[in-house]
């Protein structure tokens, strides 16, 4: 090997380490930036709940005939079955577009709604689902449900749906009783959460959000969730 080639080789090693070092520096700086900007966002989301007023209490019953779903306003002419995961971003879109309409249908006693709270997106879905069912016991499923989607973090299982934060969401909604906070922190509804999850295959539910109107799968034709399309489907039964 000539002297020149050796020098080139040595130079190559130096360049290699320099390059690896620079790349590592860029990546580390980027990661720090990304994590910081994500966590700031999560903390800000609580402000969206300021001034939240809860509606009138609506009794929720567990309906073994509908996959242990939480039934609100039984006996109405039309029945909507809603399958959601509290961490699913598309469920948030669904809630934004159609949540208010569904809530009105329940409160005006025009529709029976069976809520199926799924939790396949991970441990934080399980915790959030448990808290939602605790809120159902207090008669404020609708309110808590709305609040969950208002603060839903962009990132799944980022640590945001901790029991502590779920109690805090309850605070904003107006659920401050010891029964509620104990139910959240002790995971009192975990068996029911599992029952909801386990009923998926029975109803051939493979994703969220899934909607059945009078037992028939709602197949939307529009790209998003169109309120008029949904309303017509509900009115047609």
């Amino acid at each position: 090997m000539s002297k020149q080639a050796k020098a080139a080789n040595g130079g190559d090693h130096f360049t290699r380490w320099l390059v690896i070092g620079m790349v590592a520096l860029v990546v580390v700086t980027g990661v720090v930036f990304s994590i910081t900007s994500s966590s700031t966002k999560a903390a800000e989301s609580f402000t969206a709940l300021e001034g939240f007023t809860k509606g009138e209490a609506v009794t929720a019953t567990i309906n073994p005939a509908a996959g242990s779903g939480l039934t609100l306003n039984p006996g109405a002419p039309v029945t909507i079955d809603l399958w959601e995961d509290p961490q699913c971003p598309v469920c948030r879109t669904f809630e934004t577009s159609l949540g208010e309409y569904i809530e009105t249908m329940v409160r005006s006693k025009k529709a029976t709604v069976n809520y199926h709270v799924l939790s396949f997106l991970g441990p934080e879905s399980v915790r959030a689902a448990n808290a939602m069912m605790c809120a159902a016991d207090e008669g404020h499923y609708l309110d808590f449900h709305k609040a969950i989607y208002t603060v839903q973090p962009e990132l799944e299982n980022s640590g945001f749906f901790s029991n502590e934060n779920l109690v805090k969401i309850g605070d904003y909604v107006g659920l401050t009783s010891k029964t509620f906070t104990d139910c959240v922190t002790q995971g009192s509804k975990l068996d029911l959460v599992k029952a909801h999850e386990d009923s998926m295959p029975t109803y051939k539910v493979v994703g969220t959000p899934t909607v059945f109107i009078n037992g028939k799968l709602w197949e939307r034709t529009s790209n998003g969730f169109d309120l008029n399309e949904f309303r017509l489907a509900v009115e047609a039964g």
Partner: protein
Amino acid sequence: MVAFNQKYQRLFTLVARLVIGGVLLVAGGLKAFVPAEAASAVAAYKILPTQIAHILGYALPWFEIAIGLLLIIGVAVRLSAMASGAIMVVFIAAIISVWARGILIDCGCFGGGGAIDPSKAAEVHRTYAIEIARDLGLALLALYLYFFPYGLFSVEKIAITNEEM
């Protein structure tokens, strides 16, 4: 074939560098400033534990940007080619893995990502095939750069030629 390659190799190398570098730079750039999306896109593959997937999701776009820039300006081309070839192989493996497990996701390759409506299964499978083909093409280009790293318009000037490597 060999003679043809010898004649135009420095040009081919430049083109390969620009193609891989450009794709990486765009892919990384689109994801780097929406970190939460990138992190959940990686988690959607359900290969790594969620926490680790998120960290990878934060890091990957920046890594792509760094490698892409090195290829475009022409510094440490062989090393960068090895890195980009390796991540292409990882991407291909990840897509095959979700396909085999029947998971329907948007790859999140250029931002976005996450689960997809089950009614779109056929469409998603076609997309998987296209993505695998694309990444395979890029991996082959990277392999070419591994053998012929020295081309036109490189910042890094190398005294020795490809034949001597």
